[in-house]
């Protein structure tokens, strides 16, 4: 997928703009609060059907105006040109059309421009809590496997049911209720545990499967960006004991773990083990990146994960995503910045923001520079 041009009116501080893009590398440069992220946000609207920064669409309309519009011309990987239009009025009225034909709603536009976006907060992927990494695995697996998505939904549903039951038992224990009641609760827990073990095993299997595709892609990308820094390794971390000797199935192991944890769960009033507590371990060479990696390495690893996700989804969907990277170069040394730039323009159409032109230093390669000043865009070819 290639974005050929964008025509924007009243999108935040971008009052009126007409830009033709490079098919390889678009370097968006400007001082603080000039509108760089706003431009990425506008492009990303065509992927998400809404802003990645806010759910209040009124915020997107330029101060003092009543509506905004965006018109994007693109080219699919199979060589078909298309245009997408998007309009938003204050108060929420939305119009969307593809090749001039009105679409019933904004949601129809979702995914028309497959894209990956990396914003500063996304470094959490490698340095933050496990929830972000679970979401990463789940999102990627769900994109390529509908059965995974139904296992995941059913697992979450069963987990919610079990937790409510545990809460109730917690209350009953406090009130010292009839033990006969307790027996019936135990029988119910048995049933929910069996359900949780079945769906949970599906979730774990789906995550492992997707990791087996994502891991080599991430390793390759990371090695190109940071040669000599060591191998980036991804592996699944199970929160429950999978058992060594007898090698039980994941389902049996989870079932045993739930039974073992039952007393503790009953006291706490929620389920303390299972796929909802699992994680993805990220190693660099043989050290745990999250605990021992430098900030720069973590950032690169997070970018590699995002790009690997794009590769895997692209492989199964056969359309190259557009890559949007917000403010990543300011944190990279110039040699690394050049390698990242080379890697990007060799594979994807990319849009990269930075406060300083000098961040790319003397990197070779084509592409264009888009200067952003107080919402006004001007294009120049890089020397």
């Amino acid at each position, binding site marked *: 997928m290639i974005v050929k041009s964008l025509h924007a009116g009243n999108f935040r501080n971008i009052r009126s703009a007409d830009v033709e893009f490079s098919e390889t590398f678009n370097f968006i440069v400007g001082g603080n609060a000039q509108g760089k992220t706003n431009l990425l946000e506008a492009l990303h609207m065509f992927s998400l059907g809404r802003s990645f920064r806010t759910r209040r669409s009124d915020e997107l309309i330029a101060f003092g105006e009543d509506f905004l519009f965006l018109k994007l011309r693109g080219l699919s990987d199979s060589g078909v040109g298309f245009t997408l239009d998007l309009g938003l009025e204050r108060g929420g009225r939305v119009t969307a059309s593809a090749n001039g034909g009105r679409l019933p709603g904004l949601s129809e536009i979702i995914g028309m421009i497959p894209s990956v976006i990396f914003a500063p907060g996304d470094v959490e992927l490698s340095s933050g809590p496990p929830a972000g990494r679970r979401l990463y695995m789940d999102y990627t697996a769900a994109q390529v496997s509908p059965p995974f998505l139904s296992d995941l939904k*059913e697992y979450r549903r*069963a987990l919610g*049911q079990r937790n*409510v039951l545990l809460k109730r038992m917690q209350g009953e224990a406090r009130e010292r209720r009839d033990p006969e009641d307790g027996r019936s609760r135990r029988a119910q827990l048995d049933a929910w545990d069996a359900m949780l073990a079945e769906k949970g095993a599906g979730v774990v299997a789906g995550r492992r499967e997707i990791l087996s595709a994502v891991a080599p892609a991430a390793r390759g990308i990371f090695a190109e960006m940071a040669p000599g820094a060591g191998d980036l390794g991804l592996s699944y971390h199970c929160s429950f004991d999978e058992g060594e000797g007898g090698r039980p199935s994941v389902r049996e192991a989870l079932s045993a773990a739930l039974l073992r944890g039952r007393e503790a769960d009953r006291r706490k009033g929620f389920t303390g083990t299972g796929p909802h507590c699992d994680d993805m371990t990220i190693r660099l060479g043989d050290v745990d990146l999250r605990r021992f990696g430098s900030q720069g390495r973590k950032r690169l690893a997070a970018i590699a994960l995002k790009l690997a996700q794009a590769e895997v989804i692209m492989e199964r969907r056969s359309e190259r995503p557009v890559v949007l990277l917000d403010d990543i170069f300011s944190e990279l040394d110039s040699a690394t910045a050049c390698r990242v730039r080379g890697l990007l323009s060799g594979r994807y159409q990319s849009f990269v923001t930075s406060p300083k032109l000098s961040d790319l230093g003397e990197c070779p390669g084509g592409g264009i520079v888009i200067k952003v000043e107080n919402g006004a865009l001007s294009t120049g070819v890089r020397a």
Partner: protein
Amino acid sequence: MKYGLPLLQALVEHFRKLPGVGEKTARRLAFAVLDMEDGEVRNFAETLLQVKEKIGFCNRCGNLAESDICSICADRSRTEGVLCVVERPADIYVLEGSGQYRGRYHVLHGVLSPLDGIGPEDLNIESLRERVAVEGIREIIIATNPSVEGDTTSLYISRMLKDSDVKLTRPARGIPLGSSLEFVDRGTISKALEGREPI
């Protein structure tokens, strides 16, 4: 919509409360009532009242019944010793429609769902254990809906009966995941019943 006719308006509102009936259909139904013969309308109204008054649940299986025992439990030609467990009485009529099944039923009147405050004590589940002992049940088909709650209820029942010699089965593939029995066509149901598998 205003008619300047509060009674007609009220009738339209009543029809609208029925499932699958929108404003337009409700209006058509109301006008149809106006066109009916007096006697027919009286009959209709009387039936509505009687349905609520006289129809209760079968003492044995929980199906709808006009006396203590429903017509299926009373039917001597039904296969003895085989039960099909369903969530609601409406499910029985779907299964009967397939014309395939000749055993009797057991209606749970719901499924396990702590989120909705429903446990085994709120369902017609304990009596199933008694029926197994008293009626000499050999086989039970658990036809709860293929939802997380339906599946878990099925697991609960199979655990509850694991020490009996009853053969437990669950209708196999064919019933789309997450769909409720009521909306599945007959062919699919007979196929699913044929291919039922042990739990």
